[in-house]
């Protein structure tokens, strides 16, 4: 999700400081403040807090929208999940997707940022290009790559054949292993931009004198990258990677569009597994329990993220 990116690390610093920064106003403004936050709190309670609690309730039942009184089954949904091979396989695929796509995005994003940080003709045009894949809706990215991968008329097959790389058209989404990697390529094409934009902005903050001083001391360009750029970029890299990891772990849209979890469940990631259990098999209780487990994993990343932000300030 795009929102995530724009997070602000100053938050925690401010929270800590709040007592001090607002101490000019030692009196409390409960009434005015509650008037200001009331509309937002009504929304939050109604459409977030209540559904969250309701979801816990659902997860203890053999819940089905058609039955009037679903039987209470305690933790059975959770037990069933942990005993299910499909669940563990989906977790494995999600981990594979996350590690490979975020890893590639980081390496490529760093290289792109390095490139766009150099001075050359057309640099501002190149930087503008960077925002295009980011702004392309994920669903459109999915249909576009499905068409590019088409086994009979696809552009990729045509391109690779005319370059002599393949002798026969391939069905890129035809086998489990190929399909997963093909989806990863589509994801990397779109999401490398985010990491590149964050790292490029961080690179622009590094004073030029650092590099000049190092060069006078006889350092090579490559050494500059390893001993100046990378260490100073560490916080930005961490933040970008954690944000992307949280997003990649809940990947759904592109899987639904490109493969629907197939072939042979080869791309059935955990969000898709939750989706089919909840909305195709109508096992709402099981789905609710599943979504809690997914959230727990993502919250672990979120904690890491918050910790990085907190540490920096």
């Amino acid at each position, binding site marked *: 999700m795009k929102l995530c990116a724009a997070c602000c690390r100053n938050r925690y610093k401010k929270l800590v400081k709040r007592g001090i920064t*607002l101490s000019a106003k030692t009196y*409390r403004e409960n009434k005015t403040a509650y008037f200001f936050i009331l509309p937002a709190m009504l929304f939050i309670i109604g459409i977030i807090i209540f559904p969250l609690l309701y*979801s816990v309730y659902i997860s203890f039942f053999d819940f089905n929208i058609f039955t009037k009184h679903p039987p209470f089954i305690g933790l059975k949904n959770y037990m069933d999940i942990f005993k299910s091979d499909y669940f563990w396989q989906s977790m494995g695929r999600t981990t594979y997707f996350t590690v490979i796509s975020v890893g590639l995005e980081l390496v490529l994003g760093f290289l792109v940022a390095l490139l766009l940080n150099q001075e050359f003709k057309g640099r501002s045009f190149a930087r503008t290009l960077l925002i295009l894949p980011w702004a392309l*809706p994920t669903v459109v990215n999915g249909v576009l790559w499905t*068409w590019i991968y088409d086994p009979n008329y696809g552009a990729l097959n045509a391109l690779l054949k005319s370059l002599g790389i393949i002798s026969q058209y391939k069905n890129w989404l035809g086998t489990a292993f190929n399909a997963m990697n093909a989806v990863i390529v589509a994801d990397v094409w779109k999401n490398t931009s985010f990491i590149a934009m964050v790292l490029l902005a961080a690179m622009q903050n590094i004073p030029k004198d650092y590099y000049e001083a190092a060069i006078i001391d006889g350092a090579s360009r490559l050494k500059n990258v390893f001993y100046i750029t990378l260490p100073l970029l560490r916080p930005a890299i961490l933040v970008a990677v954690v944000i992307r990891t949280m997003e990649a772990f809940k990947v759904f849209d592109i899987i639904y569009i490109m493969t629907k979890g197939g072939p042979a469940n080869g791309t059935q990631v955990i969000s898709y597994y939750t989706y089919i259990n909840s909305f195709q098999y109508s096992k709402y209780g099981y789905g609710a329990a599943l*979504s809690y487990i997914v959230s727990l994993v993502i919250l672990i990343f979120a904690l890491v993220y918050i910790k990085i932000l907190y540490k920096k300030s």
Partner: protein
Amino acid sequence: MKRKPLDEFFLYFFAILFALIILAPFYWLVVSAFSSKAELLSVPVHWFPEKIYLGNITKIFQGGLNISGGEVPPFGTAVKNSIIVAGVTTLICITVGSLAAYAFGRMNFFLSNQLFIAIIALRMLPEIVTVVPLYIIMKKLCLNNTLLGLILVYTSFTLPFVIWMMESYFEAIPVELEDAASIDGLSRLGIFFKIIMPLSLPGLITTAIFTLLTAWDEFLFALIMTSTYQAKTLTVAISEFTTRHMIDYGLMMTGGLLSALPPLLVALALQKYIVSGLTSGAIKG
């Protein structure tokens, strides 16, 4: 620093490679949207269409039969739905969220810190955790298949984000301004509308863009909450081109291009705001 000719060569080589990799899929999206069926399904591929074909655009809006003989879903309705849902969601979130963000940023009240931390925690939750309960709740309230239902659901994940973003913009405004205004007799609400809102316009724009794009691109909730064309959004309409027996790629690319144009144009026009919003969290400090 002068570069060696070899370095110069590699620099431009990679710059051109980068541009090609970014642009090639976009080129194909546009070309496919303006190619006739015969040209799309020709082997070898027509990299440059012989004729610019506008049939897909008229067909997608007029409806009719697609390749497999099924009906083309009413695309115009989906466009309208997406505009309404994204627009109203953004409007609600910006209004309601800014008010709350101002209180969190500036006022000292009972449980203020605890509530704010709770909102940050909610913002981190993946959307999937509320998919099942919201679906059941909306169904019970008969709000599934309605735009209102979608707007409420979208607000559930954009509102905490807006509060979070706006709080930081409000905090950056010097408190002295407000003190002066309050001495002049302005109420809190007056200060908020006459001083704070105009001063935080860049922040408002950035936040509104991100909210708009998120709502415009949203797929999972739209897929689950809508089953009739009256409420389907663009993303769902596009996904349906692939569920037919045979895929009409020309129509699909046309639909994709049309729904990608608004976010792409917004991103190009307001690039400065987006980059600052994206990177504010990661680099300042």
